[in-house]
C-alpha cells in the first residue's frame, strides 16, 4: 500500500502513524493493512479512573445528608477532570486506534454530559464497547444509560406527565434528522420511553407504575410499544441508515458530501446496521483515497493535541494545563457545548483559536519559541544553552524528544516534512521552509507543526 494512502487511512481512522509503522505497512497489500487496523481494534479496553475515594458514598447517605451531596458532586467533578486527561492519554497511546477514534466520533453523536463520574465513565465505556458494533443495539443501550436518562430528561418522562425531550432528540439527532418525523411521532414515542430510570449505581430500572403500557401508534404501526420497539421501528426507515452514513462520511471522508457515495454507504449499512462492516467498506473503497479527500479536513482540537503528542510524546504535569489548552482551542472532552455537539470543520477556527493552534506546538515543545534561523546561519551556542536551561514558563510538561529522535534519526528532512504535512504545502510557504536552516530536526519539527498546513489531515 502506498505510504501516502496509509497515512491518510491512519489520520482518518486514528491520529496519525509513526514512520516505522508506515514503513512496515507499506510492504503490505491494502486489504492486509485494513485487516490489521480492524484486528488491532477487535479487543476492548475499558477506561477507568480510580474512584476509591468515592466508594463510601451510598444512595442513602446522599438522600439523608445534603452536605454529603455537595461533597460527592465536588469530588466527582475533580474525578471528571482526571477522566478527561486519562481519555486524552488513551488516545495518544492506544493501539486500538480505530475503536478509540470511533468512540470519539460517537461521543459527538450521542452527545451527553453529566456530573456523576460513575455514570460518565459507564457511558463512555458503552460508547467504546459499541463503537464498531451493532447500531441498533447501540441506540438501545444509550437510551438506558443513566447519564443520558438525566441529560435528556427521560427520568422525568412519566405516564402521568410525559417529557418529550429524549424522544425528540432520538429522532432529530441520533437516528433520522430533522424533517423525517411528525410532532405526533414524538408524542407517541415519548410514551414508549416513560418510566425509564436508573438506580444510584447507574443500572437501568423500569419504573412499572410510571410506564405507559397502552397502545401507541408510531410510523403507521400500532402496538403496546416500549422504547426498544420504537428504536426497531425507526431502524426500518432507510432514512436512519442514510442519516448515520452522512455523518460518518462528513467526519471520516469529507465535509462536502458526495451524495452518490452516501447512497452507496446507506445501502451497505441498511442491510445489517453493522458499524464495522460500514467502516471496512469505506476504507477498502478506492474513492476514499482520492486526492479530493486527502488533507482536506481541519483537525479537531483533540486530533491536533493527540497528533502532536504521538509524534513527540509530552507528559503534562498538571491536569489543569491540558484542560486549559482544550478550553482555549474550544473542545473540552466530556463538556460538549450542547446536545448537538461540536459542529467541527471551519467552526473550530476563529481569530483566537487559530493563534492558539499555530502557537501550541512551540508552547508545548519549545517554550513558545519557533526558530527562524536561515540556511547557513551561524549557530549561537551560548543562546541555545540558555534556551535549553530555561524552564517552560507556559506549561508544565516533560517532553520526550528521545522518542522523536529515535523515529527520525534515519529519515531525511524531506521525509519529516511529508510525514507531518498532509496537504500540499502552499507555494510561498514551501519556498519559505526551503530557506530555513536544516540543522536540527527538532527545530524543523516545531516549524512544520506551526504551519497552517499542519492543522489539516
Amino acid at each position: 500500500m502506498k505510504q501516502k494512502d496509509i497515512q491518510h487511512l491512519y489520520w482518518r481512522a486514528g491520529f496519525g502513524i509513526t514512520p516505522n509503522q508506515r514503513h512496515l505497512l507499506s510492504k503490505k497489500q491494502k486489504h492486509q493493512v485494513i485487516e490489521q487496523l480492524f484486528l488491532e481494534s477487535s479487543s476492548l479496553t475499558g477506561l477507568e479512573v480510580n474512584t476509591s475515594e468515592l466508594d463510601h458514598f451510598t444512595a442513602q447517605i446522599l438522600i439523608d445528608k445534603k452536605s454529603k451531596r455537595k461533597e460527592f458532586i465536588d469530588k466527582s467533578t475533580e474525578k471528571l477532570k482526571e477522566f478527561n486527561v486519562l481519555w486524552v492519554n488513551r488516545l495518544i497511546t492506544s493501539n486500538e486506534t480505530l475503536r478509540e477514534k470511533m468512540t470519539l466520533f460517537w461521543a459527538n453523536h450521542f452527545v451527553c454530559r453529566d456530573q456523576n463520574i460513575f455514570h460518565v465513565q459507564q457511558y463512555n465505556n458503552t460508547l467504546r464497547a459499541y463503537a464498531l458494533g451493532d447500531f441498533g443495539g447501540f441506540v438501545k443501550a444509550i437510551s438506558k444509560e443513566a447519564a443520558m436518562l438525566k441529560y435528556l430528561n427521560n427520568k422525568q418522562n412519566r405516564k402521568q406527565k410525559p417529557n418529550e425531550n429524549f424522544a425528540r432528540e432520538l429522532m432529530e439527532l441520533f437516528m433520522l434528522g430533522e424533517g423525517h418525523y411528525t410532532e405526533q411521532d414524538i408524542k407517541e414515542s415519548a410514551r414508549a420511553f416513560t418510566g425509564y430510570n436508573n438506580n444510584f449505581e447507574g443500572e437501568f430500572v423500569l419504573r412499572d407504575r410510571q410506564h405507559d403500557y397502552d397502545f401507541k401508534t408510531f410510523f403507521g404501526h400500532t402496538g403496546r410499544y416500549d422504547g426498544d420497539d420504537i428504536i426497531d421501528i425507526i431502524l426500518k426507515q432507510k432514512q436512519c441508515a442514510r442519516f448515520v452514513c452522512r455523518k460518518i462520511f462528513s467526519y471520516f471522508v469529507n465535509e462536502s458530501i458526495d451524495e452518490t457515495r452516501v447512497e452507496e454507504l446507506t445501502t451497505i449499512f441498511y442491510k445489517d446496521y453493522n458499524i464495522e462492516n460500514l467502516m471496512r467498506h469505506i476504507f477498502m473503497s478506492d474513492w476514499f483515497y482520492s486526492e479530493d479527500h486527502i488533507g482536506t479536513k481541519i483537525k479537531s482540537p483533540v486530533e491536533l493535541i493527540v497528533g502532536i503528542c504521538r509524534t513527540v510524546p509530552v507528559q503534562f504535569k498538571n491536569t489543569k494545563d491540558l484542560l486549559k489548552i482544550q478550553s482555549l482551542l474550544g473542545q473540552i472532552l466530556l463538556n460538549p457545548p450542547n446536545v448537538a455537539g461540536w459542529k467541527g470543520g471551519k467552526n473550530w477556527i476563529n481569530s483566537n483559536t487559530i493563534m492558539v493552534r499555530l502557537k501550541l506546538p512551540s508552547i508545548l515543545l519549545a517554550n513558545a519559541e519557533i526558530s527562524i534561523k536561515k540556511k547557513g546561519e551561524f549557530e549561537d551556542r551560548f543562546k541555545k544553552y540558555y534556551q535549553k536551561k530555561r524552564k517552560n514558563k507556559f506549561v508544565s510538561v516533560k517532553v520526550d524528544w528521545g522518542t522523536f529522535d529515535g523515529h527520525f534519526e534515519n529519515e531525511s528532512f524531506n521525509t519529516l516534512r511529508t510525514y507531518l504535512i498532509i496537504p500540499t504545502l502552499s507555494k510561498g510557504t514551501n519556498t519559505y521552509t526551503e530557506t530555513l536552516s536544516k540543522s536540527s530536526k527538532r527545530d524543523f519539527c516545531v516549524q512544520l507543526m506551526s504551519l497552517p498546513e499542519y492543522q489539516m489531515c
Partner: protein
Amino acid sequence: MCAVNVITRISNVLIMDRRHFLKQSSLASSLFFVPSFVKAFENSLTTSFGYKRLVIIQLSGGNDGLNTIIPFNNDDYYRNRPSIALGKNDIIKATDELGFHASLLPLKKLYDKGYLTIINNVGYPNPNRSHFRATDIWQTASGSDQNWQTGWIGRYLDEYGSKPYNAIEINDSLSLVLKGQKSNGIAVKDPYILFKTSQDPYFKNVLKYYQDEHLSEHNLGYLYKTMIAAESSAKYIFEKHKTVSNTFEYPGNAFGKQLKTTAKLINSGIETKVFYSSLDGFDTHAGQLNSQARLLKVYAESIEAFVSDLKQQGTFNDTLIITFSEFGRRVKQNAANGTDHGAASNLFIIGNQLKTPGFYNKLASLSDLDDNGDLKYNVDFRSVYATVLDKWLAVEDKTILNKSFSKLDFI
C-alpha cells in the same frame, strides 16, 4: 512581499468588489470578510451623532434578583426567606416597594442621576434551569426548545460586521454569543499579549512568503485568511489601545480590569460596536449572603469607575451597558441559607439616553409563581435585544433574531 502588503492587497480586492457584492448579498455573506456591510457602519456613522457602542455584562451562575433589588415591603418575600431576607435596614430604598442591596450603593447613585433603568421579570417561556442551556438560550436568543449554534452578536456580525474586532469579548476564548455563521468576534483579555502572540517572527515570515493563491481554497485558504485577519486585528486593537493612557482608578479585581480594558478601547475610538464581559460566581446554593454581597460590590464599584471614566472621556453618551444573568433564583430559600436555580429576574440598562430611568415595570407577584416556585416572566429577553438592535445599534432586529419581537420603550 511583506505581510502588510498581503493584507492591503486582500482588502483592496475586497473593497474593489464591494459594489458588486452589495448587489448579491447572499454571495457577500458567504465571504469571510463580509465587506458589503462596511456600508452599514458608514450609515450609522452618518445618520447618528456618534458611534454607538453596546457593552454586555453577564453575571454568570444565576444572580438572585430578589436579593439584588429587594421587595422590602412584601410579606411573601420575608415568609419565603426566613434566614436570608434582607431587612429594611440592610438596603438602600429606591421606591416604596423596592430597594437596592447595600453593596449596590454606587449603582444607586447612577439610578439617582437617571442613568439606570431596571427591567423586572425578564425571561422567556418554559425557562431552562441548567446554567449551560440557559446561558446558550440567552447567548443565542433562541427559544428554550431550540438549539441554535450561533450567538445573537455573531449574527449581528454576519449581517453588519466586517472585521473580527467589531465585537470584542474581554476574555481569552470566544463565547458562543460572538460566533456567527460566517463571522466571529475576537476575544481579547490583554491587548498586548494578543499582539505579541500574533507578531511571532516565524508567523510573520510565513505570511511574508505567502501568496494568496489559496485564498479561494476551501479549508486551508480559510486558515490562512483567519490567520491574516487575526494578525491584523491583534495589531489594530493593540495600536488603538496604546494611544489611550488610563489614569482612572478601578477596583483591583479581574472584573474591574475587564472594564478598564473595555474603557481604554472605547476611549481609543476603536471600531468596535459590542463588548462582552462576565463576572462569575453567582451560583449561591449555600451561604448566599456573604458571597452575593461581595460579588455585587465588585460589580457596582467597577461599574461606577467605568461610567466615570467614560464620562470624563466624553464617550458615555454613546455607550449603553446591559447587565443580565442567565436566570434568577427560587423565591423560597433552601436549607443551606442559599437559593436554587430559578427563572425570570431583573436586568439593568445603564446609559444617559434612557427614556424611562428608574423602574421600567413592577415586580411580578411573589405569590403567583410558576410550577417550580419561580417568578413568572412578563418581559421576553429577546424584546430587550430587539429594542437595543433597533433603537441603539440601528439595525434590522428581525434578521438577527430570526423573528419579530415587540419593542420596549427604554431608549
